[in-house]
């Protein structure tokens, strides 16, 4: 086992990642009546996404998944504040994040290179305008072609997602939830972006539509070669479509490996709990819940944030933050109990 601390982007089988996040810290900062609160929703997260891969982010509610993608997407508005770290895109080199880049540059890459499927994307369409105008507003300025050609492209793209061209003349409320979701995915992929950030794209959909939507995301990736960052709390979703998977806990990335590897050989105690909690056909042993609750991020426990709930907690876990180390090729983990030599 190699135990050198690795930075994302130095992975041997990847020349240049399309997206790399380094030590990103994003906090919700409020100051009400002199009481300062600093919720460390994303606290030192690093990972890289390769061209054409689907990178999954998993974790329970309030683990910082959504804040992480929001920060990457540049949707940073008070009280959310980026405290430190960099976000680098291959198509926007040198700035270290959308919020540091000039507005014109950001406007240029948005949707053309980086698109975002927001959480709760059933409500992201303007209720008083037809879908056609959403496509025109979002994508037309990025595609240098005639209006007629654009219309044809949109229809062809909709057909790819099994949507009838008639949806263009519909208002959002006239479509079902699944159709709206597919329309949103169509909207986010029409410009063939390099990176698609998808935040819970299948939540609130029934499993049949969910399966369709996931197949659609894989299909889009295959056809147009985009990289996808897929956020979901549902490990079943990750098992189906993601290539690599990062597990988040309390604002930190605690384990990252190929999805198959995570399911076969989870190393972090939290990940092991997650995996063992999954139901398996033919196995009727009652599942054990994890004691305790995720920590309050305004006042997180010192050291490893998982230690109050961890069955393997040691003395060092209570005061020292474990580094993220590569224990096997492509398998990174932040835990003293696993990386024994670090604890010693």
């Amino acid at each position, binding site marked *: 086992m190699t135990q050198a601390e690795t930075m994302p982007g130095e992975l041997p089988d990847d020349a240049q990642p399309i997206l790399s996040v380094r030590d990103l810290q994003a906090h919700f900062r409020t100051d009400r009546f002199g009481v300062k609160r600093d919720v460390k929703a994303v606290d030192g997260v690093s990972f890289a996404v390769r061209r054409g891969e689907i990178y999954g982010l998993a974790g329970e509610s309030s683990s910082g998944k959504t804040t992480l993608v929001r920060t990457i997407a540049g949707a940073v508005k008070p009280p959310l504040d980026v405290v430190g770290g960099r976000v680098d895109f291959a198509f926007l080199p040198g700035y270290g994040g959308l919020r540091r880049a000039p507005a014109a540059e950001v406007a240029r890459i948005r*949707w053309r290179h980086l698109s975002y499927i927001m959480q709760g994307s059933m*409500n*992201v369409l303007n209720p*008083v305008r037809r879908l056609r105008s959403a496509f025109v507003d979002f994508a037309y300025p990025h595609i240098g072609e005639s209006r007629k050609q654009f219309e044809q492209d949109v229809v062809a793209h909709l057909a790819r997602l099994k949507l009838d061209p008639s949806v263009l003349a519909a208002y959002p409320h006239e479509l079902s939830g699944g159709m709206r979701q597919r329309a949103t995915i169509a909207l986010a992929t029409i410009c063939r972006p390099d990176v698609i950030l998808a935040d819970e794209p299948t939540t609130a959909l029934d499993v049949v539509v969910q399966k369709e939507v996931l197949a659609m995301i894989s299909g889009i990736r295959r056809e147009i070669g985009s990289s996808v960052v897929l956020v979901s709390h549902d490990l079943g979703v990750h098992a189906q479509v993601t290539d690599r998977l990062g597990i988040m806990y309390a604002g930190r990335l605690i384990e990252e490996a190929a999805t198959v590897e995570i399911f076969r050989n989870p190393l972090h105690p939290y990940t092991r709990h997650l995996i063992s909690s999954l139901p398996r056909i033919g196995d009727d042993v009652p599942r054990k819940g994890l004691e305790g609750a995720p920590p309050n991020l305004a006042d997180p426990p010192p050291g490893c944030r998982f230690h109050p709930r961890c069955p393997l907690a040691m003395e060092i876990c209570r005061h020292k933050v474990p580094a993220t180390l590569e224990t096997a090729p492509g398998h990174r983990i932040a835990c003293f109990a696993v990386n024994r030599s670090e604890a010693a």
Partner: protein
Amino acid sequence: MSGYFAYVVRRLAQFVLVVFIGINIAYVITHATPIDPVEQSISVVTSFGNTAPDAIEKMRTSLRELYGLGGSPVEQYLAFWKRILRADFGPSMSAFPTPVSTLIGRALPWTAGLLAVSTIVAWGLGSLLGGLAGYYQESRGLKLIGVIAIGVHPIPYYILALVLLIVFGFLWPVLPITGGAAMNLPQAPTFDFIVSVMQHAVLPALSLILIGVGSWFLGMRALVSHVVTEDYVVYAELAGVRPWRVLSSYVMRNALPPQLTGLAMSLGGIFNGAVITEKVFGYPGVGSLLVDAVYAGDYGLVLGVTTVSILGVSTGVLVIDLLYPLLDPRVKVT
């Protein structure tokens, strides 16, 4: 579109019903007053000297006929509706024998013109500035406008009107202080007359706009600051949709329907006249007419003005109800 047609028909029927009930209420209330217009008129005539009793009796009969007070209450009521449908409210008592409809017809253009213009200007200005202030919440200029709007808004209207009169009528006498137009000009569409009408309208209109802008501003700012947090606005901004497009088609467009309802209600209300404005600026409108009619116990005139304003308000609401399904596609016409 057949659904919409059925909706229009149903809504029109409702309109007729509302107007019918409203006029009935006005009829009952005016007829329940203790003032008897016939005796009132007779006492006016007889106060100038002796009149033969049989002449008085004849006068009483013909006046009862004129005021529609002949016969049983049912006959009176039916006669009332017959005349209403011909827009005939009988002669005015205080301006006997001028018909009520002539008096209203003379006052209405003044009021409607002044109030329509000032209401629309106040609404447009208030909504636009309020929308911008709700969207660009950090802008200092718009914050300042907000402070001014909140500051001016609670000033009692008559104080503001009087201050304007004193400033522009006495301290710096550049504008006429009373009337609808210069008295010495014939009421014809000549250049001089139109200029005079405009000059006379400046102060009343300004007072109405200054007071009116504030509430439209605050309403629109509140609506917009709610809309900007909606997912579809956040998403459009994130997608790099051009800012003016986000502001117009995403933010304003979704905030506007409630404001338009308010505008329609206000426009319906312009036929009520603006009593205080017309009194302070001596404007020859429906509001002054109504107040004078009430003082004089001229209930034919009161009924006439009330009927016109019932029609005005109901029409305003009708128009906005008919437009609403076109403004917001989510409003279903079933």
